[in-house]
């Protein structure tokens, strides 16, 4: 069986990773905007 630590860790990882994804997109958009390389 998957352990409780793995179970909880996977869920936390999923949520944190998803949140960081949103942050990454905002940072990248800002960078592209400043450099004039959006589209």
């Amino acid at each position, binding site marked *: 069986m*998957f352990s409780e630590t793995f179970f909880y860790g996977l869920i936390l990882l999923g949520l944190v990773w998803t*949140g960081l994804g949103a942050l990454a997109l905002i940072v990248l958009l800002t960078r592209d905007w400043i450099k004039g390389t959006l589209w």
Partner: protein
Amino acid sequence: MLATSINQETGYVIVIALGLLWVALGLYWGRKAKDSEGFMLAGRNVGVSLGAATAMATWVTSNTMMVAPLLALKMGVWGMLAYACASFGLMLFAPLSMRIKKLLPDGFTSGDFFRHRYGRIGWSLFLVITLVYSITWLVTMAIAGGKLLETLGDIPYLQGMTLIMVVCVLYTIFGGLYAVIGTDFIQSLIILIGVVAIGVMVLFHLDMGETYEHVSTYQPSLLKVIMPVALLAFFNNMLFGFGEVFHNNVWWSRAYAMRDKVAPKAFFLSGILWFPIPIAAGFIALAAGPLGVNVTDPSKVGPDVAEHVLSQAGMGMAGGVLILVVLFCSIASSIDSLLAATSDLLVKDVYCGLFKKELNDRTFRKVATVAILLVAVVAWFLAISGLDLDVVLFSAGGLVASLIWPVIAGLFWKGCNRTLVLTGIVLGVIVGYYFYFEVETYTGALAGGAVSMLFTVLSYFIKPTPFPEPKPASPRVS
């Protein structure tokens, strides 16, 4: 109707307000689309942030949000991971996108590639497969949108589905790929933030120790490490994902739209961004038991648990609004991409290619508009027909997996035996459907992909002929 369901008036207000926002942005960004390259490919100059976001958002559909919890409910940890591995298709498209831009720097559609590498017969076969698949996908999104508004907002199915389609059609017509990509970025942020918000609230209401205890006592199979059917689903989904991404013009048009060095980075990043979403959205299904949520319809376990938790958190109607907005964005971000990409195929490959019509930038917009409307109308009629198109979509694993190896061979090899490759595609499709319906649903893509792979490998050794040198990739708009 769910307890956090919003009343009909609020439902209409939200959908119309969001719709007006997307349409206004479509009009604004559409001013950049001055010619066919602008309209279809956003000027071939899209940067990494917009590129990654649009690829990720398009791949997040209502299936991601509704089926991920369903798979978690049926197959537990492996169910979530099986769905998450569909992201590998996006990641692996990164090197393919590099090669696509090198091979077809002036390309417009995935049809350009098939015409060039596999001739008219291969091109025609490809067009049949991809148009069937794309329209089916589009229809399932339209149906999902209608059902969502009916469940959450008490808006009758026909009106809700029509409203979502009209909004997406309008901003796609006004703004082309600029509008699609721009709105995708906003929608991707809403999706990511919304999934995290709902997931965190569920987590706050759960005692993880008790949850694990409950699942291991009453549903121990969901925590099994060795779970043959889940492992089968894992690899089948992976191949299904490869097939969908490698062949579909939704992704090829984005590859063409991005700057040369941006495309591989953006696709790889989009896969990285997408991977955790089925886990973040799916785990809440495992909270159903511990929270005492009575799951009457497994396909709605995600929203059921979400609304239960949001009600407990005292959010009431705001909770329903949050779920509605996130799901609406996930649906719209796929519908607009499918409308744009499928109409591009109709214009470039069917109208200009097969019917050999010439277009200039003035007449192009009219034809493109008609193509978008035609795709939308066909999808609308199918969405009200009552046909069970989920089966058509989910059984198409073999259909799309059969194209994986021909795409890879065409991109990276110097030549092959075309007849064998095309035979492999046809047989792969047949075998894929047979395995899906007669053996086990999680074998269609594996079987179809395996047959196609065998024939493609044989084509390398048995009387291969060199591919012709690349020419201007498609009938150009003069």
